[in-house]
């Protein structure tokens, strides 16, 4: 039981790490969503072959190389070139780049699933292209892509654990440090898993609610 009391003393630190993880996930989500929407819109509406080629290469590179390699490239690689990012910023930048590639694919398939008539009807009632995108196409596309988006968000929260590899003081990193200092290995890792589950399961439930809400609206 003495072990357990030691462990209870560690819990606040772990929870603080969980908060850091959520902060990183939130910043990444905002950046990646913005990036994903821009890329998806460009891919759907631009006619430029060069632009398609460049965006295609970016998406394939980001999607087929492990996130860990991206983080190492940004954290260690950029500092070699003289750009020293703090670890948390490197993690956010790396995860956002990967995320915008993943979300670009998701949003693009959402946009392309819409009928051409949506766009034409928008033009017919005199909306500008930005207005059509903003008021007609994107809201519908986002609704279609909600399940895939939900998957991405849960994956993202889990992927923040990779940031521990570049010493971002999030929950996984703190847990590894605590293990080496207290030797409460199984208790700490069990607690970490439970904390992750407690962060991720509500997200899943929330998205299912959201899907139902939109489903009934349709």
């Amino acid at each position, binding site marked *: 039981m003495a072990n357990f009391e030691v462990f209870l003393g560690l819990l606040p630190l772990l929870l603080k790490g969980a908060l850091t993880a959520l902060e990183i996930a939130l910043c990444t989500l905002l950046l990646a969503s913005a990036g994903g929407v821009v890329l998806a819109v460009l891919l759907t509406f631009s006619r430029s072959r060069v632009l398609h080629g460049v965006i295609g290469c970016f998406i*394939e590179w980001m999607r087929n190389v492990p996130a860990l390699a991206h983080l*190492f490239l940004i954290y260690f690689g950029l500092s070699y070139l003289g750009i020293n990012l703090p670890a948390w910023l490197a993690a956010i930048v790396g995860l956002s780049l990967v995320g915008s590639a993943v979300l670009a694919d998701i949003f693009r398939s959402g946009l392309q699933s819409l009928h051409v008539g949506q766009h034409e009807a928008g033009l017919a009632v005199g909306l500008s292209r930005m207005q059509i995108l903003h008021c007609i196409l994107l809201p519908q596309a986002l609704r279609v892509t909600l399940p895939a988006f939900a998957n991405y968000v849960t994956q993202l929260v889990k992927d923040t654990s990779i940031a521990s590899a570049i010493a971002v003081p999030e929950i996984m990193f703190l847990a590894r440090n605590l293990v080496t200092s207290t030797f409460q290995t*199984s208790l700490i890792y069990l607690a970490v898993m439970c904390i992750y589950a407690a962060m991720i399961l509500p997200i899943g439930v929330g998205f299912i609610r959201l899907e139902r809400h939109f489903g009934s609206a349709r």
Partner: protein
Amino acid sequence: MISFFQQYPVYWSDWIARLLLGARITAELSLMGFALAVVLGALLVCAMRSPSVILKRLATFFIQSMRAVPLLALLLALYFALPSLGLTLSGYWAGAIGLGLQGAAYVAEILRGGLDSLHRGQREAAIAIGLTPLKAFTTVILPQAIRGMLPPLLNAYVSILKDSSLCALIATDELMLAARAIASETFLPMHVFLLVGLFYFVIAFPLSMLSRVLEKHFSRGRKTVRG
């Protein structure tokens, strides 16, 4: 820019040998993880379709918990926490098992989705013409269901391949660990991690493309059948 690339010829033979060695371990790890994921995934589907409520609950619980926990946490737990319970795994085996356990949850969903996509009339018709349930499954259901499963299974392999890079953090001698060792010896992180990214890309990209091509191919087949 040019001076950046001039570093490569200097170290080329040393790096390539070590990275190829790492790539072999990465390939082994990811293939073993994938095989384990497919076997476990199939068992999970069987459990979910069995009449036993307990089995169903257990399978669902397993899948949910695997999806709620990061792979890295699972790997660290397998590698560092299991020994205190009396089971010591090498980094290599902890990695393969961790990849397999987490992959199984995803593979189970793919297999289930593939089976559910078929109309139940297929099975009923097969039984009606006198096939045994097993024969109906192997000759009628599976060949059709597998078309839908193949593309997402390929994607699942690609994700296991990428995730295997995390095994570097539990001291498995795979591609990423080899890269990290080289980077810290030579102080050329940008060069090494770009190269190692290319290694992963060269394996993963063709598979991703194949998955996309297969998906298009199979969905085109379906349309013509519908007429």
